[in-house]
């Protein structure tokens, strides 16, 4: 890990969205969508941001690309601070930073053929000389598994999976270093999803691409990621390599999340942790540990003190979690304070 080059470095990132109210439309409150998170991404790896709706994972992705301007914090990419860049500098930077969205249809201009779409992307970033562009387009089409004769078709003439391939081709056309995949395969049927996932893995190996994967499907996440960041209500609750997170989760939220995934094997019986109630509003997040209102292990301390991300000696690699009791829970010393565990089967 140590000899790897840091590509993206995020420090104390905050993204608050103001809520206007009252007769005068003053800011009466904030949605703390992302509240003070820090993490790094190394060159050539895939990091996944996981969590449920409202945890801030998509907001983080957008903030990194400055699709929204973050409230506070720094985002360093390749040693340069993105947040202090001017609009023009940022535009040049977008060549290295691409995004693939969930809905490929909504993100493609319906009036432009595939060729025009790809041409435009290369034109804006000036990465490929004009006379070489047609060759590059043909190459891209082949790479993402589309037929060369389809290049002059419009987005509506393609299926969902094919459109996602066009989205990938567009992202790849400017030779980026980092691609943010915001639920990029979520809308696809499994048979097509597998095709796209394999494609993404192939490009990573061939071009040393770095991915920031934002996804709610933990099967996809386990398959594609080197490292995983688990978010809950705008904060990181646990972070570590894929194996550690899936096989040795420490935070009670991560445990509950993983146990909730339905396993496609009727013979497997596992303990399932049922969480009570819904995620609280990010407008008024709970004090202390944000998970304490739903946590089976919560005590008074959890309601008062915010736990920091930390490593215990039995946790491997860069594995960290933010729970006051993770060591005691691991050792069986700290027992659930609420009854929420049920055996599945």
């Amino acid at each position, binding site marked *: 890990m140590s000899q790897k080059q840091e590509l993206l470095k995020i420090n104390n990132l905050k993204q608050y969205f103001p809520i206007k109210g009252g007769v005068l439309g003053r800011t009466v409150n904030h949605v703390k969508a992302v509240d003070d998170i820090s993490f790094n991404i190394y060159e050539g790896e895939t990091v996944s941001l996981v969590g449920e709706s409202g945890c801030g994972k998509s907001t983080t992705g957008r903030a990194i690309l400055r699709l929204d301007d973050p409230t506070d914090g720094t985002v360093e990419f390749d040693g340069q601070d993105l947040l202090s860049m001017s609009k023009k500098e940022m535009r040049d930077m977008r060549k290295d930073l691409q995004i693939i969205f969930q809905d490929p249809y909504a993100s493609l201009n319906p009036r432009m053929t595939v060729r025009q779409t790809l041409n435009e992307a290369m034109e804006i970033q000036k990465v490929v000389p004009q006379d070489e562009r047609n060759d590059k387009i043909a190459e891209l089409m082949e790479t993402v598994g589309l037929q060369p004769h389809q290049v002059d078709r419009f987005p509506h003439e393609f299926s969902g999976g094919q459109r996602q391939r066009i989205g990938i081709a567009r992202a790849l056309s400017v030779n980026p270093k980092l691609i943010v995949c915001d639920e990029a395969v979520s809308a696809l049927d499994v048979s097509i999803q597998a095709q796209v996932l394999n494609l993404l893995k192939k490009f990573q190996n061939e071009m040393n691409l770095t991915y920031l994967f934002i996804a709610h499907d933990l099967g996809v996440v386990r398959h594609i990621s080197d490292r995983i960041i688990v978010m809950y209500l705008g904060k990181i609750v646990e972070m570590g390599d894929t194996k550690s997170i899936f096989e040795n989760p420490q935070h009670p939220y991560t445990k509950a999340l993983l146990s909730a995934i339905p396993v*496609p094997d009727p013979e497997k019986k596992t303990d399932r942790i049922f969480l009570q109630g819904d995620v609280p509003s990010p407008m008024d997040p709970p004090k202390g540990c944000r998970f304490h209102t739903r946590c089976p292990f919560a005590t008074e301390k959890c309601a008062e003190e915010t736990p920091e991300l930390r490593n215990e000696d039995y946790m491997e690699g860069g594995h960290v979690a933010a729970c006051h009791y993770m060591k005691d829970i691991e050792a069986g010393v700290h027992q659930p304070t609420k009854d929420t565990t049920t055996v599945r089967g």
Partner: protein
Amino acid sequence: MSQETILEVNDLRTSFFVEGNEVKAVDGVTFDVPKGKTLGIVGESGSGKSISALSILQLIDSPGEIVGGEINFKGDNLLKYNDNQMRKIRGNQISMIFQEPMTSLNPVYTVGQQLREALKIHRGLGKEAGTEKAVELLELVGIPSPRSRVTQYPFELSGGMRQRVMIAMALACDPELLVADEPTTALDVTIQAQILELLKELQDEFNMSIIMITHDLGVVAETCDYVAVMYCGKVVEYADVHTLFKNPRHPYTVGLLNSLPRSDMDQEELEPIRGTVPAPHEMPVGCRFAPRCPFATDLCHEKLPELEDVGDEEQVRCWIYTDEWDGDPEVKVYEPEARTAKD
């Protein structure tokens, strides 16, 4: 079939007529729902699974139309029922819940008003008795402080809560069959776990039969007793859930399992199904899956196989399991070792 069945669907056909063309969304679907059990109908978009579900309650809108087949509910063919008779079945003996809890409740009526409606139609309960029963139902589906919820509007509830209200509404008249069309697809995974568990508890309590429409094989494995796999408007495989996952027979079922990224094991490489689902107007004449099937022969491309019995309760629509098979007689459709070796 040895078990008592509550619903038998035979050769159901539902088509959509657009600009003079017939699109066969459900093209001769046959399956049984055993009493007190859960039948999963699994398939990808365009497989016709949701249209099949809507056809059971005859909720197909123009330009769609049920063009043939039988839907036998406790021995009576529902397709012979008139509108009035059908209304007495809906929400009473057969209920349905839908994928989108956010839009499936009427925004301008309170939760209580919407719950009371079915109780009034099918049980003749007045406002007070209806409200009492509504509170009881909300409690049953695990909604906290149910008495104050009956006066709330849907927009005041979260997605998970709304789906619970939908379930409460569906259960109002103790249905014998619940049709659940992707009931957890729009929900977060921890909420999905709550809802699936709730359905299971309610099924045990009321000996209810369930049809679970889903694209998620995890949900199938967890909640279903029997499974029908659909592809392009047809059932390609029917089996009990253990057999289906242990010994899938149809190459499409195998393809689905091999495409699935698993959260419970490490996999090096996914094996996607090649190509894409054919467009409705370009449906192959032979087996619908032949163009994407790694085992397809000339026979598969030319002639459509029937859904044949291959065991006590198992059926598959594939030439490989027939005497006419003209390919490799030793063909292995599924090799489980390849999947679990890295577990």
